């Protein structure tokens, strides 16, 4: 109870891993850390499903259904009778939304 974030869609197959280190480099939450022979999935619960690791894994050892965890976008999509998953982050669209505004302008 009180933890809706316990499960997620991140799946990792260490048998495929070639230990290139890319997943631990792109993950902003330390979900993957470098290991001796393969990358180590050390904090699966911290995953925010951004998809950076899966997209940058050269051997497809990682899969994740990536998407933006934005309630505003999902509720707006549902209210307009569309699939919640189709509800793209509203930022950049015509509709001004409260989501992501200036969230990460600190990034380069």
């Amino acid at each position, binding site marked *: 109870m009180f933890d809706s*974030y316990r499960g997620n869609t991140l799946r990792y197959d260490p048998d495929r891993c070639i230990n290139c280190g890319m997943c631990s480099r792109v993950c902003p939450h330390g979900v993957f850390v470098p290991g001796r022979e393969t990358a180590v999935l050390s904090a699966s619960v911290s995953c925010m499903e951004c998809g950076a690791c899966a997209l940058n894994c050269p051997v497809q050892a990682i899969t994740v259904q990536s998407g933006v*965890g934005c*309630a505003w976008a999902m509720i707006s999509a549902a209210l307009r009778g569309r699939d919640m998953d189709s509800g793209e982050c509203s930022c950049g669209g015509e509709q001004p939304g*409260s989501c992501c*505004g*200036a969230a990460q302008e600190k990034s380069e």
Partner: protein
Amino acid sequence: MDTTQSCGCSCTPGIPSLPCGCTQSKKETPGIRTATSTITIDNRFDHFLARWGVNRMGHTVRPGLYQLGNPDEDSPVFASANYTLSFDALRSALAGIDAYLLVLDTKGINVWCAAGKGTFGSAELVRSIECTDLAHVVRHRTIILPQLGAPGVSWPEVLRRSGFKVEYGPVRASDLPRYLKTHTATPEMRRVLFLLADRLALIPVELVHAALPAIAGALILFFFAGPLAALAAVTAVLAGTVAFPILLPFLPTRDFSTKGLILGTIAGLPFAGTFALNPSGPVWMNAAGTGMAFLVMPAVTAYLALNFTGCSTSTSRTGVKNEIFRYVPVMAVMAASGVVLGILLGLLGWLEVI
């Protein structure tokens, strides 16, 4: 206008077989523009307006290649988004460094959000490399991307399609000078932190977005239920938009909705107390007033808290969806029963008057 028209292939000269995705206007020569590391008062004013959500999509930089200092063909290349806050963070962090800055067309959206949408992505990166003729500007074949661009970029695809190797720099541009010494980032440079300063910076835009419905709700309550009810509405909204971002890591539970319910209940305490201890009212009326404060205020704060997930840096789509299905019905029932209770109370009061 011909801005969306394919260019007469000024990009990739000599390799006409490659598809040209260049969408620059023919009138624009794909020359290299000049950037400095100085943040002017005008820049700061623009940042201020961006923080307050004024002209939200208008804080843009012209996409293309920029030179910073006096770069030569061996100077590093950094990619950025065409959002002023992103671009300004990069150019100011690189003070004293000669470099090229490749600004992708992310439609005025910051790197991370644009990467999530795919506009800061492999296709746009490859297109920008081709259109700016980067392969003839620098001799090396490496381009440094902000780490938070990674959700939109696949390095093997960029390498295959452009010949450029993607190197992921640190999360924060301010760490770049340190990063450039070894071209390796420490684990903390790779972490998104969402510190108090980051959360405080989001409050203005949260306030702006909640302002209209909050003022409308407070006015309606003021005329139909009195100043105390109007104040309660404003308090619940301020709890969700100002107090919540500040207190986020200190509120127990991981779910934003339950954090919001807790915060809204705390915010409702003084109002519930005032209703409960009202000496002039009958007991049932005091009890109903107390119930209203504890039903409506936590529901409003929790809904605003749930909507903060998109601003936060840690919520997965799976988790947010779980939260919506679990708590939105609860919030709706709480708010609806509170409102019904209020209307009943108003009707009874009105009947008593006659």
